[in-house]
């Protein structure tokens, strides 16, 4: 299996899907001539021309809404929003239109579109450019939200998202674009709505997605050297949420930690902890713990930014604490 970057996996998949289906086209700011702020669409304008790789004005509400309208007529737009922070300007079109049109009109018209956008802090971009607000969208029935953490999942889930008849928010991450992994040569269409157990383990369940899933596997690999067996659940899909996989894991391990790349209050960890207590109450040997960002607008200065963000170290600390709570001698 070839080893390629997450970025390459996205680009190859976009390209292949555009060759496969004439209705698939790309829209976004700076995706054509500039070849994408993060170069995901590099080479695509040259290959497909302006009709299918369309540079838009800086008008998120306007062009995201235009994608919704084009999808209503049966095209399959894949929109790039430069970073998820700017998706807030398109909130109305995503939440009040893309997510509502199928249901609100009694199933007469689906909206087959994809919004690709990266989240991610840790790049010293300051408070407005470092957020992970994908949960705003994961809150909304009618939308599907996926967040792959590996190049293979990026390819498989992007393919699935493009072929899906519903609006899909496809979350990327600035910190993942250069990561590498094996991607099968054959065409794999991922399944939206399914988490994956990416490391099997018996001592503790560690849940994350996107960049935190990557960190979770690193933590699991390191703790294995200390004889701690961590089971890592990569959510991959935030809506629908695969609670079954999480709960089954906790039934095996008896305790869980959730690693979140954004603020704790009202976050995904709260949702998962609630699900675990309802689905695996009798199996729990310790409270579910959450590792999450400090609740501040993310500062620019590196020491402050580093301190505010969850990391492999903070995840490891909380795993130790949880294992001690169930009576293990660790750390």
């Amino acid at each position, binding site marked *: 299996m070839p080893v390629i970057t997450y970025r390459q996996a996205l680009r190859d998949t976009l390209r292949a899907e555009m060759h496969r289906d004439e209705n698939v086209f790309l829209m976004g700011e700076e995706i054509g001539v500039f070849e994408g702020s993060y170069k995901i669409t590099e080479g695509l304008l040259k290959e497909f021309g302006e009709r299918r790789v369309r540079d838009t004005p800086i008008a998120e509400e*306007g062009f995201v809404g*235009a994608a919704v309208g084009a999808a209503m007529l049966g095209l399959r737009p894949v929109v790039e929003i430069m970073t998820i922070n700017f998706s807030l300007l398109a909130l109305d*079109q995503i939440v009040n239109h893309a997510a509502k049109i*199928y249901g609100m009109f*009694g199933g007469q018209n689906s909206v087959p579109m994809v919004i690709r956008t990266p989240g991610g802090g840790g790049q010293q971009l300051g408070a407005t450019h470092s957020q992970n607000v994908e949960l705003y969208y994961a809150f909304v029935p009618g939308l599907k939200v996926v967040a792959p953490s590996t190049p293979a999942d990026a390819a498989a889930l992007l393919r699935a998202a493009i072929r899906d*008849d*519903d609006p899909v928010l496809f979350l990327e991450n600035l910190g993942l674009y250069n990561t590498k992994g094996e991607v099968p040569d054959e065409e794999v269409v991922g399944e939206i709505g399914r988490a994956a157990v990416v490391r099997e383990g018996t001592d503790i369940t560690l849940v994350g997605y996107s960049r935190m899933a990557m960190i979770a596997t690193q933590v699991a690999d390191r703790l294995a050297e200390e004889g701690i067996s961590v089971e890592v659940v990569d959510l991959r899909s935030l809506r*629908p949420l695969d609670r*079954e996989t999480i709960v089954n894991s906790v039934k095996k391990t008896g305790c869980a930690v959730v690693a979140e790349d954004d603020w704790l209050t009202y976050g995904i960890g709260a949702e998962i902890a609630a699900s675990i207590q309802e689905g695996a109450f009798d199996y729990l040997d310790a409270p579910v713990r959450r590792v999450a960002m400090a609740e501040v607008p993310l500062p620019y200065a590196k020491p402050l930014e580093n301190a505010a963000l969850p990391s492999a170290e903070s995840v490891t600390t909380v795993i130790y604490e949880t294992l001690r709570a169930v009576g293990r001698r660790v750390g």
Partner: protein
Amino acid sequence: MADTAKPKATGKTGSRRRAARNNADSHFNGEKPEVLLDYYRQMLLIRRFEERAAQAYTQARIGGYCHLNLGEEATIVGLMEALQERDYLFTNYREHGYAIAKGTHPREVMAELYGRSTGVSKGWGGSMHLFDARTRLLGGYGIVGGQLPLAVGAALAITYRGSDEVVMCQMGDGTTNIGAFHESLNIASLWNLPVIFVVINNFTGMGTPVERSSAEPELYKRGSAYRIEGVRVDGRDVLAVRDTATTLVERARSEHRPFLLEAFSYRMKGHSVVDPAKYRTKEEAEEALANDPIAMFEERLTEAGILTDEIKKEIAESVKAEVADAADFAENSPHPEVSTLFDYTYATPVANESRRMPADPVFAE
């Protein structure tokens, strides 16, 4: 305050009324009487339909918000006459008349207002969200300005495929102040998209007069920053609207570019059924009633000898029967089954989709 928003010809109440009479052309240059009578009938149907809807609303047969087209009948019929069947229409939430004039059966519109499964949106949309894939009414939208980006996207799809439909996108005067208006006009012009943006200027957004919300209250000029040609038409005159709109629709089709059409008319009642419009002066309310497009058309048709008492009675009766039938149909239609609650969340079935009812446990045994 300077009354810059209103067209010059319409100054004080009395003169406006007179102006309309003076304009009355008893010859209707070459118009076929049966066509004129058909317009008249359509306008009357919308009028009676809306009155019936208001009644049903006050009787609590209709829920939610209910915005009526009273006073806009001539505009609606004129606009819909300008569209071909294959052309697409997007509107705001004040769209009952548009749905009917585009070809949805009044029964299905009324049933939607009643929230019945036979409604045009199967009871999922209500008054503000009528949608008919068959007639290409691609939705009434309750969010002010929400329909504009969508209409631009539909026109983009048309251009992408190289076909020749046109998209009409209706909105109110207040909508010209929202960001989506400006983003959409810019994109439509930049990409040469066949969209007719139609601003229904009833001089008020809820209770706010145009000149208190739009820094350029001559709304047809608001496309000029985007090099979009704007035209103002007397929305009380069905023929003027039809002719102006037809020209723009056909130009959009052949020239591949957007236009902005402002049609002014008077909102005869409050913003919605529940609004008594107390913010209006007595004179303003009277002015609105004096600008009743149906009364004006009736007068012209009568003067031209086209509308006789007999025909008038005949049309009134058939319209009355049609509206009564629509209300009966709605009343006797079934409510949607609760078992269909999860039918329309996703078009593509998906793993782990929640189908939990409020009191259900998260993990069903």
